[in-house]
Each structure stands twice: as C-alpha cells, then as structure tokens.
C-alpha cells in the first residue's frame, strides 16, 4: 500500500482566521498540496506570515485546517499523536525536570507499561546519541541554547515517531552551534531513516539537510509556489557541499525566490493561466544546458596560497 500511496499526503489545505475588524475572514494559505515519501527530508521556507508554522501545527494535530485533509500512512490526521514527534523552536523543555527526566517523560508517554530501568536505558541511549552524556542530571537552565535544543531532538527521536516535525529548530542558535547540530541531525537522520518535515529560514540549512525544498509564496493566500529537488549527493559535508556542481544553481534559485518571486506569485495566482500545482525545479535540467556559470562560481581547486608564498 505504501508503495502506491505516499507516506504523507496533504490535500487542498487552507486556513482562514476571522478578521479582527469583523470583515471577511483572512485566508493565510489555501490550495496547499504536497506529498512526502517515507524517509524523505523535506524543508519548507518562505517569508514570515505565509503560514508555515500553521501547516506544521496542522500536521502535528495541534491546530486544525479550515478546509482540506492530511493523511499519514493512509489514515487521516485528526489530532496530536505519538506517531509524529515535534521539535519546537523554543525547545519547550520542562524546566523543573532534568535532561534525563525530560526525555524519560516522553519515553514513558510512548511506552507506559515499561519498567523504570527500561525507560531509563532507552532515554539514556538517545541522550548519548545527541552527545549529552554527562549532562543528563542537569536542569535545562544550566544548559546552553544548543544543548537545550539537543535535548529537544533527543526527546523527539526517543519516542521513535514515524515522522518528525521541526519548526525552525535552530533559529535561535548562533551560527557555529547551528552548524554542529545540523551535522548531528544529518547523522541521526541517516541512521534512523527518519521522515522529516522542517521549517527553516536558512537557505544553506535547507540545502544541507533536505531532499526537497518547498517554497511558499507570501501570505495572505499563500501557496506552495515551487518545489526544488535537492540533487546534491549524500552524505553531505558542510565544508565541501559548495564544491558540488548543483550547489550554486540551487542556492541562487532559492535566494531569487525569497528576494523577488515570492512576492510576484500573489498576482500570478489570479491569472487565468495560473499554475494549479507548484512548478518543480530540478537543477539537473539546468546544468545540462548551461554549465558555464556554475564553473565560474566553483572555488578553484588546489592550493592557491602556495603560489602566493613562492611569489
């Protein structure tokens, strides 16, 4: 069955809020359709107010759509479920519990009948996975922002969900910490074959982590305007990823969308020949016809500084 149907299917999703002034309801997004296959890592990006977080909350079951349906594994999503783990932007750890207790709380929720030792061992396995062994008895307030978010990741993975939802998980972290945790997330996702839906504002983060990147136009009446197939081969290394031939075409395409095309989509939408489904961008198509600019962007290979020394 899963071979025919996608793992997650979102059909015609729309969300409207009553107008604060009492007029017509404000539609944040509508006609949102997409599919996610098992094991796929999908990133969503777009400007603030396009409803990304609302879509994530609907997938999590924390919010409900005005119209449209979400199906996961052939069943409709009607509320929160342990099948979908959520990593919140503000880590959402319980400050009165230690790191270990926070993870154990989730594990105990998933397997209520397990005994204490089993729950403890299971929680510790995931705490070790995110590199927090030794900090398990600390309270969240004693941890740095990056460590707190790692606990959030450990908690979400510990319940072994069928799907992981992440709402800008690294938005509040400094660039260095973010890089380290992205690498760890990449490693864990590769190990666990986790299906992931992630919101990010960071183009480089999307390129590093995802298989596909969905681009949302600006709200109100936001939609998924374009889908970019991320063709960069795995495993990906942050230090070497920009040397890939497809890297700059993808990055330029994403930045162009965020800077200019995301605004134009609104007027395009009402045109009679407006696209009913998002356009798919595949850098492979582009590379074959137009290779030159890519080479120009690629940093020179070798050790140029040797020449400088000899000069």
């Amino acid at each position: 069955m899963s071979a025919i149907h996608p793992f997650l299917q979102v059909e015609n999703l729309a969300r409207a809020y009553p107008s604060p002034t009492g007029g017509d309801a404000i539609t944040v997004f509508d006609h949102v359709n997409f599919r996610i296959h098992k094991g796929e890592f999908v990133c969503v990006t777009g400007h603030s107010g396009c409803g990304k977080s609302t879509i994530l909350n609907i997938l999590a079951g924390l919010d409900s759509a005005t119209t449209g349906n979400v199906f996961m594994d052939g069943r409709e999503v009607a509320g929160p479920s342990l099948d979908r783990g959520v990593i919140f932007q503000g880590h959402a750890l319980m400050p009165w519990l230690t790191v270990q207790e926070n993870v154990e709380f989730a594990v105990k929720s998933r397997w209520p009948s397990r005994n204490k030792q089993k729950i403890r061992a299971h929680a510790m396995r995931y705490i070790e996975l995110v590199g927090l062994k030794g900090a398990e008895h600390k309270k969240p307030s004693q941890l740095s922002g990056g460590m707190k978010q790692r606990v959030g990741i450990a908690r979400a993975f510990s319940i072994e969900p069928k799907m992981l939802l992440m709402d800008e998980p690294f938005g509040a972290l400094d660039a260095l910490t973010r890089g380290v945790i992205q690498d760890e997330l990449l490693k864990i996702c590769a190990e666990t074959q986790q299906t992931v839906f992630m919101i990010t504002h960071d183009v480089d983060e999307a390129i590093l982590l995802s298989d596909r990147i969905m681009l949302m136009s600006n709200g109100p009446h936001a939609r998924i305007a374009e889908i970019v197939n991320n063709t960069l081969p795995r495993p990906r290394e942050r230090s070497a990823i920009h040397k890939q031939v497809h890297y700059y075409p993808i990055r330029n395409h994403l930045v162009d969308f965020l800077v200019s095309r995301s605004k134009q989509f609104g007027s395009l939408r009402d045109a009679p020949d407006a696209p009913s489904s998002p356009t798919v961008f595949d850098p492979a198509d582009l590379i074959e016809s137009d290779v030159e600019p890519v080479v120009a962007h690629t940093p020179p290979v070798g050790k140029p500084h040797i020449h400088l020394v000899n000069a």
Partner: protein
Amino acid sequence: MKTKLSLSQKAGLLSLGLLAVILLVWQLATLPEAKVVAADVDPEYAALMGGGAARAASSFPTPAAMAQTLWDKLSHPFYDNGPNDKGIGIQLAYSLARVLGGFFLAAVVAIPLGFAIGNSRMVYQAINPYVQLLKPISPLAWMPLALYTIKDASASAIFVIFICSLWPMLINTAHGVANVRKDWLDVSRTLEVNPLRKAFRVILPAAAPTILTGMRISMGIAWLVIVAAEMLVGGTGIGYFVWNEWNNLSLTNVLFAILMIGVVGMALDSVFGVLGKRVAYQE
C-alpha cells in the same frame, strides 16, 4: 590593620546596633520617675497607692522585667492552671491548630477549584464575580454568621481562617494554571499524555511556584486574623491570651504575647519560603 567585613557581617552589626539602641531608649523611657510625695500624706497610705518609695516604677515594663518574663514563661511553656492560666506553648498550640485546620480546609477547596477555574475560560467567567465580591470582605465580618450557623466558638474561628485563606490560594492557583506555557501543554498533547498525568506532571509543577506564593500569602493573613478572631471567641489561643492579659493590666504579658505572635508568624512564613524555593524552577 584594616579588615574588610562582608555585606552580611556589616548588616549583622547594624542589626545588633539597632537592638542596642531600641533597648536603651526603652530603658530610658521606663526609668522610675522621681515622685514628689507630699509631706502631709501618711506614708502608709502612700505605700498603698504605690508611691511608697521615693521613686515610683513606671507601669510599662522595663527591658529587665521583660527579660525576666521571657525567661519565666519560656522555661515553663506548657503548664495548665485552669482556663485563665495556661502556658504560652498551650495557647500558641491552640492558635496554630485553628490556623492549620482552616488553612488546610481552604487548600482542599481552593486548589482543585483554582485548577478548574484556570483550565477553563468559561468556569473562570462564571466564578469570577463571586470571587470579586467575596474577596474584599473582612473575614471577621463572617463571625456572627458562623457563630449562628455553626454554634461553636472554636469551629467558628476555624471557619473565619478558612474564609480568609481561601481567596489568595484560589486566585493564585487559577492564575498559575491559566498561565502554564503553551509549549509545555503542546508537548504533552503531542505525547498523548492523559489528563490526570498532565495535571500532576505538567500543570502542577509548572504552576507550583504561583500556587505556593498564594499559600504563603494565605498563611500570613490567617495568622493575622487568628489573633483578632480569638479575641472575639475567647477561651483559648494567643488572641485570647492577649485580651485576657489586657484585662489583667499585665502589659508585660501583652508585650510577651506580641513578641511570640511575631516569632511564630515569621517561622510560618519561612516554612513557606523554603517550600517555595523547593518548587521554584528557572527557565
């Protein structure tokens, strides 16, 4: 050689200094004043009127007399020589029993009710007018009603404590529960935590600091009110003791009782201070 004193050492010295000044002023204010004994008064009559000595003692106790009373009373706190002569320990125990009884009953009502109010806007709006109306009423105003319906003086005092402890606990519990961070509730929703486990493992610890602050305020008010309530109902307790000693014109004993009320009140407050620290968390 100069030694640097820490802040708390300096504060301690200043405290001791203040005590010395207070005792000195007290001593000076209660010095026996020279009395002009009229020459034509019979010395025996003068002695009967308290003016026998050349210098008459003030009727306000001196620090030394106070210290003597403190020593006597505190070395036998639990004697019982009938209804009007009981040790201070017994009187305080009666008061504490009433306060704790009323306070405990109030907690049993206020905390679950506060949970319900904090969890639901609808319940909050339904109950809020009653709370707003009943909160500003002096608890002693309930005393006649309590005496009439309960028909027992001691139980009426407990009821008055119950009423005055109720509101701070109710309001703080509702406030704490209503303001639990949405993130934590969302976490428990995505983890499919059942309502009972959510109440005890998420909402209660999250709201505990606010609830405990409410309990601390309630206890403070209850200890204030019990003195007045016992002056009214009489019989036993520290409030009755104060009023009884006033009737005996023993200002030394009144002063002693005031000191004890302060000490016990401080002790009760610090118990809640410790409990509050225990449930506090840092975000």
